[in-house]
């Protein structure tokens, strides 16, 4: 997190981790939404476009999840670790003062 903006906005809770997780969730929803959309499309032109976008979304998800794993913000192989992390994050969110 950029410290100047952090101090200016008082948003020190909005760390890179939160932003990355938001991006990961968006990427995940993207893949699912596109899969839905592809199965609704009938016109070849639209279907081709959506399939291409689905590929983009899959790749985006792949990159973001790899990044989050590397940073230790996402632990698919260790459920206990993931639970611990979620508990900590939940506590942080719950203790945030509402501005």
């Amino acid at each position: 997190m950029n410290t100047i903006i952090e101090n200016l906005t008082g948003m020190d809770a909005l760390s890179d981790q939160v932003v990355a997780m938001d991006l990961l969730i968006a990427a995940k929803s993207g893949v699912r939404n596109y899969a839905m959309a592809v199965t609704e499309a009938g016109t070849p032109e639209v279907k081709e476009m959506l399939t291409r976008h689905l590929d983009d979304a899959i790749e985006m998800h792949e990159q973001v999840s790899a990044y989050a794993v590397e940073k230790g913000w996402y632990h698919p192989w260790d459920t206990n670790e993931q639970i611990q992390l979620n508990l900590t994050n939940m506590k942080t969110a719950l203790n945030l003062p509402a501005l």
Partner: protein
Amino acid sequence: MNNDYLDPINALHMPEMADTTFAMDFLLRAKEGVRNLSVALTESASPDVRAALKKQLKQGIALHQEITELMINKKWFHPYELPEQFKLDQLSANNTIKIGKMNLFPIETNRKGVFDRTPDEN
């Protein structure tokens, strides 16, 4: 269609009605398959699992496309003429409700007793 399942009049258009139902089932399965695979893909982290799921997702989309085209060609599916689709939906729903109400299996159909022993017993 009347309620007598032995009445030959009910056999009229039967092949077409049956195929419409089967094709619709096939289409829905293909669709659900694509959706399931996409969910599984977003939950997977191992590269080889991802590769397999991605490949099958592609196949699933292609299959879905083929079924859609087949059904449009055979006039079993009308995504572009919704009133036509509406008629078809209602007709097959009505027919299937009638079939559902028929007493198709008047005699005992429990076949469990046939399978409860190994061949060399008895």
